[in-house]
């Protein structure tokens, strides 16, 4: 479980996060949603330590990450896997070398065990036989899947996914959503997904935190989100014509019944 307590963060005179508190539960896919510029990526970067919050605390299973030294943080970070928006694969390395990298740095596995682990991870994301290719030779969706394979290579306790579906077609996005959901359940990880893709939220979320103007404007699950009377949340959810139509159809069906 990851607990965020009273996090605030400003850039210059501009406050981006205002006293944000949230709990991301173990074994669940916890979504952070919000408009572009709402502060969701900044919150994620504060949680994983890429940005230092101005105030507040982040606890990983009760361990105060914000109060830790660099050395102590390093130990926690070995338990974190992260899928970046653009994949962030090391472009000078092959797919196998990318996945092996955390194993080489932080495990005592021999070469054969590492190769076996690489095959397992690639098989888990359905990319068998791609070991010797370079990231540039793969499609966007395949790169995301390699990113997931690299993120889970050390069996992390916490998985962060930053906009996992950005730039992907709807079918590939569904594959990625399902993969994130499956590996979260399989490994019992605490997964945090930053997204503004409502399809993903509906497909894969267990809990949802909606950020608006640097504050948590809604906490709940899918069902609660759909019936929320929060105007800002409804404006966000039903911004697309497709979602508006779904809502209209749903309300006309319920009126008929």
């Amino acid at each position, binding site marked *: 479980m990851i607990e965020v307590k009273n996090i605030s963060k400003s850039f210059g005179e501009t406050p981006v996060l205002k006293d944000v508190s949230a709990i991301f539960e173990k074994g669940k896919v916890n979504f952070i949603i919000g408009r572009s510029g709402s502060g969701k990526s900044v919150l994620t970067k504060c949680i*994983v*330590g*890429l940005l230092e919050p101005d105030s507040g605390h982040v606890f990983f299973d009760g361990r105060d990450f914000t109060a830790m030294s660099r050395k102590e943080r390093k130990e926690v970070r070995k338990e974190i896997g992260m899928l970046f928006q653009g994949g*962030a694969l090391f472009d000078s390395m092959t797919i196998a070398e990318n996945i092996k990298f955390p194993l080489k*740095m932080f495990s005592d596995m021999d070469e054969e065990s590492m190769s076996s682990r690489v095959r397992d991870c690639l098989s888990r994301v359905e990319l068998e036989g791609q070991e010797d290719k370079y990231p540039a030779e793969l499609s966007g969706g395949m790169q995301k899947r390699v990113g997931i394979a690299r993120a889970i290579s050390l069996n992390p306790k916490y998985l962060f996914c930053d906009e996992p579906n950005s730039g992907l077609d709807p079918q590939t996005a569904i594959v990625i959503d399902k993969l994130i959901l499956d590996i979260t359940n399989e490994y019992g990880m605490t997964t945090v997904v930053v997204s503004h893709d409502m399809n993903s939220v509906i497909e894969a979320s267990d809990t949802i935190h909606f950020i608006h103007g640097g504050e948590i404007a809604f906490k709940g699950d899918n069902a609660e989100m759909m019936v929320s009377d929060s105007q800002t949340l409804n404006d966000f959810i039903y911004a697309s014509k497709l979602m508006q139509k779904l809502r209209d159809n749903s309300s006309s069906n319920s009126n008929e019944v």
Partner: protein
Amino acid sequence: MYLSDVGIIFNIGRYTRFISTVLHKPEKGKIFRRQLVREMSIIGVESVGIVALLSVFMGAVMCLQTAHQVSGWIPVYTIGFTVRQTMILEFSPTLIPVILAGKIGSNIASQLGTMRVTEQIDALEIMGVNSAGFLVLPKIVAGFICIPALVVMSMVLGISSGAAVALISGVSSMADFEDGLQVDFVSYDVVYAIIKTTVFALIMTSVSAYHGYFTSGGAIEVAKSSTKAVVYSVVIIMLTNLILTKLLLT
């Protein structure tokens, strides 16, 4: 001008912290050694051609220009003397690093800048890797090893080409040229040149890495970082050259 549009104090402070982060024991010796070999290939081996070319032509031109001045009371051995002094004291230890700052500096800054904007550096940090140390230390160590070696090679090639041109063009006999090479030779000059070069190697690799590592934005910012890396490296090398010359030679 770059120096005026940024906070110099801020950059000096951040550079100092950056270097203190870089200078940590590598997490895995085997991985560090592999990276070091790769960086030595990029910084050293891939620079041999350009350094050799420049040194050969510089030695040759220096020989002919000095020969042009030699007349009347100026002895012929001055040709060998001038070629030697120019190559050992200034061309090889200063101008070669300046040229390499353009080649190697832009390479380092653009590589790290691209890694930053594509979140590869963030990925290393998230994994718990000291990204600055992991990426930059092999480059600095490779610079320390390769750049002085390239400079020594430049001295040898420059003087050799000067001798060859003197002989072929007939401006000096080999005996006169050799006399010039030996007259008033102070071996400390070579030590001074190596000290300068080693300092310049640290400047060009670390300053370029600093600009690349702290890139933010996209392709335009990567290009700007690359330009800044070269400009700052050259300016700092020139200032340091003045200071070191004052300290070590006078």
